[in-house]
């Protein structure tokens, strides 16, 4: 779409919750029989060291619930100030009803509060921010945005390309009316590439069956079933490093800003090599592009951008002109330029059962 500006809204605070279970890359490599030299190259190139995964039936909804509770508490706001809730996820608890409705009930929100899910992945945080920002303009109330996935549960453990990548997480973000603030958005889709990142079976086009659960080996030795998440690495890499630099430049042109004007770039943490390539092509110093999330937590899908912000920033009263940008399933990509001056921004929080 053409870039747009939403005036008079801003982000109040962000909380990210990660599961406490850590899987080391060297454990993954051993499990998959990846030889030491190759494991070292993968670790250094992609930036994999460890990832956080859910266990014992914990879902993105559970992680998101804690993120919301901590955010509302941390901002010292009231649930009655919330006019709408959006949950961006591709790993909902159920095909029906949507996660947002269930979370609405768990949080005890008023019946006047609308709630919906958005089915997007790595670009989903920006799409969610856009929906939230435009809702604030019409509702005149705060909007709660929850993003999160448990993709570690969607990959085949014998898939050498995908099973080493994904970590689980959920984030909650509160947006509200803010005078003199502007958020500049640009969101795009290339639906012709929909098969590059896909779970082929399990929905209406190909319902799950015995057949869709049977493991098959591809020509690169990856084993997965049609019920599992498939990521075509080369296609996704080319898509990311070709579209992102152009998208960022187009957005900045629309905002009449330069790359030098931007204090920080918070990209979806797909892998370090993609981030380094984007940084190189944009000619942006790597210090302005945090990239430690993939190393510490794994690829967290829609939660990776807010998690990077939680890891990088404090509620220190400083205003930072920031670009947030995500790219992935769809194929889709989206960016926003905004001032980040957060009232609450703790480091990522460990989920625990005591919060159940």
């Amino acid at each position, binding site marked *: 779409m053409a870039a747009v500006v939403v005036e008079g809204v801003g982000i109040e605070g962000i909380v990210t919750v990660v599961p406490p279970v850590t899987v080391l890359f060297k454990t993954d490599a051993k499990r998959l029989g990846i*030889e030491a030299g190759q494991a070292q190259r993968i670790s250094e190139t992609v930036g994999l060291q460890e990832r956080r995964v859910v266990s014992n039936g914990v879902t993105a909804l559970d992680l998101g619930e804690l993120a919301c509770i901590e955010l509302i508490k941390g901002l010292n706001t009231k649930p009655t100030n919330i006019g709408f809730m959006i949950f961006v996820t591709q790993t909902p608890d159920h095909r029906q009803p949507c996660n947002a409705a269930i979370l609405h009930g768990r949080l005890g929100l008023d019946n006047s509060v609308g709630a919906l899910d958005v089915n997007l992945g790595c670009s989903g945080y920006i799409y969610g921010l856009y929906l939230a920002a435009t809702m604030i303009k019409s509702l005149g109330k705060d909007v709660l945005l929850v993003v999160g996935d448990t993709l570690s549960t969607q990959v085949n453990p014998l898939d050498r390309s995908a099973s080493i990548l994904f970590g689980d997480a959920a984030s909650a973000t509160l947006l509200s009316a803010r005078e003199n603030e502007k958020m500049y958005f640009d969101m795009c889709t290339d639906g012709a590439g929909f098969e590059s990142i896909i779970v082929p079976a399990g929905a209406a086009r190909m319902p799950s069956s015995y057949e869709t659960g049977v493991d098959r080996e591809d020509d690169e030795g990856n084993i997965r079933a049609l019920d599992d998440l498939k990521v075509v690495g080369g296609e996704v890499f080319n898509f990311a490093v070709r579209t992102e630099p152009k998208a960022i430049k187009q957005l900045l042109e629309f905002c009449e800003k330069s790359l030098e004007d931007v204090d920080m770039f918070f990209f979806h943490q797909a892998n370090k*090599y993609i981030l380094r390539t984007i940084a190189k092509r944009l000619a942006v110093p790597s210090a302005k592009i945090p990239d430690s999330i993939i190393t510490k937590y794994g690829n967290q899908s829609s939660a990776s951008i807010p998690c990077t912000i939680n890891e990088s920033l404090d509620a220190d009263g400083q205003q930072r002109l920031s670009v947030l940008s995500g790219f992935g399933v769809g194929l889709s990509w989206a960016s926003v330029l905004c001032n980040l001056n957060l009232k609450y921004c703790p480091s990522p929080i460990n989920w625990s059962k005591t919060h159940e």
Partner: protein
Amino acid sequence: MNKQEFILELTEIMMLDDVLVESTELGSLSAYDSMTHLTLLSLFEDEFGKEIETEDLKKAKTIAHLVSLAGLD
């Protein structure tokens, strides 16, 4: 980057002890894998202005084919 520098770069990308030669068969290199492909995709585009796909890299049989893909033959 000339041909010799390109072949040295390939050797480094695959973290090999012995320097590659044009006749080296890619099928004999366990390090010529999907991770190397990703690295080569950006190398070809950034160094040589060539937009290639993973399939092009899979079709290549020898180092000489990669040299040719890079336009250095």
